[in-house]
């Protein structure tokens, strides 16, 4: 039986290659704002949809790229399981929210990233169409697999420049039996020191957020462990429904900080995502800041020039991504060292020799 949806996408890629017309790969478009400007003829992945296989006792789900993320997470929740890395669900035009393919291509993870790992840590396998319209499968559906290069994880966060993601197999985990959210009044320096100190102790930490003198901490795990930790750490317990709404808002950028940031961006400011070593001291940059991931992710909404922000991040061993902004002329992603830039160019050519997938979406010069 012909796989109509797959065949249609394969034909599109083959035709695009023959005609040398670049394609703009897109699911629901919930992350159109992210990365360099989308270019090329629209290639909608949503026809390639559905959960192909889900066996809760294997902790593995295989799902087609165009499947709405919300649909996948609902199916997992039905079995008491989840994608532990809290993938964000940004709004999309069709009201369905982002797709699984978009989640993998953007590689963005939510509040629990620092404690459980990111998208790539849960990708076990992937089938992709390369630039020659060949359907290739890497990795698999098992937990441990070192057969050949781990191409399935290389595509995580690649912004679609290497190939068209068709299907992915993801490791899933049981939902934590218990969670509790605590709130502490604390300055930035103290919060960073406290988060790193807690990180070195056997505590069931799940997520953290510091903003405007307030540290919010989520514990998750076995009931007994969460209760014992909450007792030890003190702080004020936030009522469960309120806490759940807070973490979801943070994940999807719907909470107060991000709503404020969106307004500031409309007024010409930039929302930066700083990836830093968790122990990096407060950077003291002007603007509003939200600290997540135990200090390893810091959102900065600021009118400062890009070069200053990038310099400050690099000085402490990190990097700054221009997450939202009207003016992206400084480049969305921090520039690469010479050897890494060369490897990027060569990998792009290895997967997509004719430069048809998402040209310039990751770096302006890459494959356009």
């Amino acid at each position, binding site marked *: 039986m012909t796989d109509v949806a797959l065949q249609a996408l394969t034909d599109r890629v083959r035709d695009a290659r023959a005609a040398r017309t670049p394609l703009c790969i897109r699911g629901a478009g919930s992350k159109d704002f992210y990365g360099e400007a989308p270019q090329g003829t629209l290639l909608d992945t949503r026809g390639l949809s559905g959960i192909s296989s*889900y066996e809760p006792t294997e902790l593995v789900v295989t799902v087609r790229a165009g499947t709405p993320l919300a649909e996948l997470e609902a199916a997992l929740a039905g079995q008491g399981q989840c994608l532990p890395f809290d993938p964000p669900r940004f709004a999309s035009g069709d009201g369905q929210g982002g797709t699984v393919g978009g989640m993998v291509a953007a590689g963005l993870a939510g509040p629990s990233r620092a404690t459980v790992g990111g998208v790539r840590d849960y990708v076990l396998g992937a089938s992709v169409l390369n630039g020659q319209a060949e359907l290739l499968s890497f990795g698999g559906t098992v937990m441990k*697999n070192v057969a050949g290069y781990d191409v399935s994880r290389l595509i995580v*966060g690649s912004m679609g420049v290497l190939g068209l993601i*068709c299907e992915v197999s993801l490791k899933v985990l049981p939902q934590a039996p218990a969670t509790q959210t605590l709130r502490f009044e604390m300055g930035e320096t103290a919060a960073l020191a406290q988060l790193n100190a807690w990180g070195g102790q*056997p505590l069931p930490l799940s997520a953290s957020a510091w903003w405007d003198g307030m540290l919010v901490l989520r514990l998750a795990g076995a009931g007994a462990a969460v209760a014992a930790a909450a007792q030890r750490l003190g702080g004020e317990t936030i009522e469960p429904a309120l806490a759940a709404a807070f973490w979801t808002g943070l994940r999807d950028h719907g909470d107060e900080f991000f709503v404020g940031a969106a307004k500031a961006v409309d007024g010409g400011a930039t929302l930066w995502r700083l990836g830093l070593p968790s122990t990096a001291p407060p950077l003291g940059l002007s603007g509003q800041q939200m600290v997540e991931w135990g200090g390893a992710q810091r959102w900065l909404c600021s009118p400062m020039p890009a070069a200053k922000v990038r310099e400050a991040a690099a000085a402490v061993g990190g990097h700054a991504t221009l997450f939202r902004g009207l003016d992206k002329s400084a480049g969305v992603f921090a520039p690469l060292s010479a050897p890494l830039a060369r490897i990027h160019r*060569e990998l792009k050519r290895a997967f997509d020799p004719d430069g048809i997938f998402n040209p310039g979406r990751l770096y302006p010069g890459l494959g356009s």
Partner: protein
Amino acid sequence: MNAPELPTAVPAAAERAARQRDVVAALQAVLPAHALLWHAEDTTPYECDGLTAYRERPLSVALPETEAQVAAVLKVCHALKVPVVARGAGTGLSGGALPHALGVTLSLAKFNKILGMDPASRTAVVQCGVRNLAISEAAAPHGLYYAPDPSSQIACTIGGNVAENSGGVHCLKYGLTLHNVLRVRGLTIEGEVVEFGSEALDVPGLDLLPIIVGSEGMLAVTTEVTVKLVPKPLLARCIMASFDDIRKAGDAVAAIIAAGIIPAGLELMDKPMTAAVEDFVHAGYDLKAEAILLCESDGTPEEVAEEIDRMLDVLAGAGAMRMEVSKDEAQRLKFWSGRKNAFPASGRISPDYMCMDSTIPRKKLADILLAIQDMERKYDLKCCNVFHAGDGNLHPLILFDANDPDQLHRCELFGADILETSVRMGGTVTGEHGVGVEKLGSMCVQFSPEEREQMFAVKRAFDPDGLLNPGKVIPTLQRCAEGGKMHVKKGLLPFPELERF
């Protein structure tokens, strides 16, 4: 295409000698005299790694002491188009560090310093030649440790762990090397310093760390690694459960996961393995059992108590005949001693053994064990089985005598049969030991010609001339054609509209 290929013919002695003269002369210009070996008696110790069935003598062995010297060696090899095989402790089990007959073996043994240990960020910066266990020992005063614990952890180095994406018995809960490494510093074949990953949790651009980790030294040479350290659990307890039927034991593994439990360790030994290790370590294993499961819980005392109770319920429900919970740390280590000594115990009962490493979906555990029992009859060789059951990662140890060429041949066929059966069951030919040279033939079964060509293209993106560890990991079209192995077709799973759960 300039696909790397293992030399099929032994080079002529005169040709080899001439090449060796040139290479040694060029390397002498960049290395101190004591850091370069080329006489046969000096290079013989490097002729194999942990897979002793395959041996080759390199043109020379370079033992640089500084990153600048490594860069210089690579520049020389790049200029002369000489293959380079990086080597750590040589404990690998798939021949990944097998020398190239016309190449240089780059020993990184002298890069054995821990450069930094930061309890605040819970990271350590270590040179590639630091032993896996040494990291945990150095971190212990801070209540931290490095989670991946391959059986060879006393000897194997972090550089080798990066090359193989090594696992261990705690992977299901704590992840593989990839999940516990933040940054890899290395050198390209051109001798340029390059860093993959960073001390932040992500990097701009493509995430190259997952393609470097597990690349078996074919993309770059690792010199330094930043590893993550995790807090030592306050307590760990282990259940030893015995089963009178392999299928019941396999079902017990699935039932534990289905109950929403992620054990810190979940290991299985079959009856022949249990007999071999009991004779060696006297841990009190149940010799009547067809299969023994070791099931570990770690965390806070409250957490462990809760989880052990749940595990006991599940195991009893799955039909365990006997269950014992470790009372203290000494008893827990005793339970593990047999599992950790499976390899030496096999060495005692057989002149040689070959260890396989395929992974299967957990639900196929009993099926593969029963298939292996059939293969024992088919190839007339004995096989002991230890499994990382929680991950579905098998380590069948095929017992044979290498002095008997027919036994070696049957053993190779037996091994290939296990790997190919694993692929047909939806698994992979290697879970944690790597492809090296040992599993090249089986890679033809797992990957299509297009997939293998894409991997060669990845290789060329890093190493256009194919000089880094050539001939390993990815078999050429020609090799697959000669082997006559059929590729098991994958593609997308059909009919996603059907409910399957």
